[in-house]
């Protein structure tokens, strides 16, 4: 049985539900079925209602992410600067598509609406660190380096 007692820091008000879910995701990396039950009982809501909120917001993940979470920005600026190609190159290198985690749990890939670094387009972030002005060469070397350093 997992321990979700840290949820008490969010308080019990309905308005803190999203905060509570964010805490879970920060700790666990994703929202598991067990977490849905725990959050539902903490806020005295039905599981369906919690699932409804989780599925509404793009930030919440229901699958366990990889050690290195790659988020490719697909904002307008990045898109016209070739973010589709960035995604393809990452997929070719890692073998996974957006929304997937690779077999050994090393990389996971997702797209985000906009990281707000449009002037450095195209950009991606890996575990929150933003990499800008990507071209194929820079991208491949970033991924290879991560692979090398574990």
């Amino acid at each position, binding site marked *: 049985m997992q321990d979700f007692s840290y949820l008490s820091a969010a308080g019990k*008000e*309905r*308005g*803190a*539900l*999203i*905060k509570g*879910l*964010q805490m879970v995701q920060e700790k666990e990396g994703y929202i598991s079925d067990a977490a849905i039950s725990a959050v539902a009982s903490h*806020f005295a809501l039905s599981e369906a209602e919690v699932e*409804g*909120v989780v599925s*509404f*917001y*793009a*930030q*919440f993940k229901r699958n366990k992410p990889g050690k290195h979470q790659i988020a490719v920005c*697909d*904002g*307008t*600026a*990045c*898109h*016209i*600067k*070739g973010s589709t*190609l960035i995604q*393809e*190159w990452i997929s*070719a290198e890692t073998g996974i598509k957006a929304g997937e985690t690779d077999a050994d749990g090393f990389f996971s890939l997702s797209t*985000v*609406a*906009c*990281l*707000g*670094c*449009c*002037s*450095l*387009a195209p*950009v991606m972030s890996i575990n*929150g660190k*933003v*990499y*800008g*002005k990507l*071209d*194929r*060469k820079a991208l491949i070397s970033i991924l290879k380096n991560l692979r090398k350093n574990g």
Partner: protein
Amino acid sequence: MIKTIKIGTASCGLAAGAGELLEILRKEAGDIPVLEVGCIGHCYAEPLLELVTDSGSVFYSNVKADEKSIRSVLSLAPEGRFSIPEKRSSKEMLKVTRLAGKIDPVSYDAYKAEGGFSALEKALAMSSDALVDEIKKSGLRGRGGGGFPTGNKWQFLAAKKADQKILICNADEGDPGAFMDRSLMESVPYQVLEGMLIGAHATGATKLFIYCRAEYPLAIRNLKLAIKELEKRGITTIGNRKVEVIIKEGAGAFVCGEETSMIASLEGRRGTPRFRPPFPTDSGYMGYPTAINNVETFGNIPLIVREGAAAFASVGTEKSKGTKIFALAGDIKCPGLAEVPMGITLAEIVYDIGGAEPGTVKAVQTGGPSGGCIPADKFNTPVDYDSLNALGAIMGSGGLIVIGQNRCMVEAARYFLDFTHRESCGKCTFCRVGTKRMFETLERITKGDGLETDVPFLEDLGKKIKKGSLCGLGQTAPNPVLATIRYFKNEYDAHVKEKKCPALECGPLVDVAIDKSNCIKCKLCIKNCPVGAVSDSFVIDNSKCTRCNSCIEVCPKKTISRVEKGSGYSAVSGQL
């Protein structure tokens, strides 16, 4: 003599490598204080250093994070110096962003020393009525895109009698391509908070929320530090009531930028909009009277109070007063933030400030996925709320994406609908199903399977979605399609009738070919092709090729390119 070194460590600076640079700089700088500052808006020059010397400041741009480069900068070498292009500085008017990138964002004293909180002090000496009146007189309109007069909104809230009144700062900057608000929150968080506290006095608000998207961790961090400092100093006490300032992190839903959705999200629910009336100023967060203003709107407030409504209103056009911050990105030389007086022309922004070469630009997209594109031949339009509306675009929050001649407008429209149909909350049928159908139709057209009836269908459906949707998302989602059909019908025709993409962007409508006359047989293309589409004799099998551009990127002689499907190059042999 170098007195201080300032390094821009806002998100864009960090993404460009300011973090690594800072580490080495700290080691090399010895006794010279190194100060982390926000963003001055010249993102293309990041990482950017400002060396404050006895005889003024010297800037260095694109500084590399190695000891040699840093020593060269510390010796005030002439190489690598940066100066703001005069063409640009003559068009800009730094009012709201005056302190951005100049001061330590989280230092209360630094903000105070530059005149910070003098506006709050002045406001507190005024009556609420007089304050609301001053904002009304300034002519300030909401900077989030709607353009509703801020003073009027505040007056509605001020007139309400309730034990709790809520003022929300909309920091959910969800338009892809917009980053003005991020920069303000990261660079001058105290200024945004000062604006909010003035708002609290004007409207009698008891609780202040900042609804900030979770993708902006640095903005959230800086705001949190600033709020803590203000609470410690008792500045969040207005008159004799303590005002609560709470940061709420969004969770990634574009529709939450709409006010009733945002309120639902703050209440911990799915962020779906609801009917208005009742307007939030009558019944908003938890039923309390609520007003919502954008980050940049709040950023303008201290300026108005400090300099007076008349001074503020002396800038801009008849119906759009003051300055506007634009986030410039896309196919231009100098992307970044630019604060300009309302009424400046698009040409001045794109060419003089953005540094784009005339002739290379096809259009700009304003207002993100809710906006429209404006073709280059209309760039002499003055930028204000009403002129842009007249062109079928909107001011929006200030994202301005420059689209080059080499881009496909149908693909751009497809991209926006891909975004909006996924972000539609699903409440209104026209928006939920309609945007999906529009997206599928555009997808079909960009794949070369477009039907003659598709363009009229898109126009008809687009108009219906606008009428049949409750909130701003649905009401504006068809705009990018309608605007591109209006101005770039020829590109739609080329895709539908001739099955061609003039910009060579739509994968299924192009081939990739090697020009063998310049090929040096280095085999990089063969090694890098993920699907093995390049043969040992340097022929590309276009039936295997996924148009991923890997070979085009790696080719040292630039011999590989996209060509029109079935044109001069034979699709089978890949040769001329």
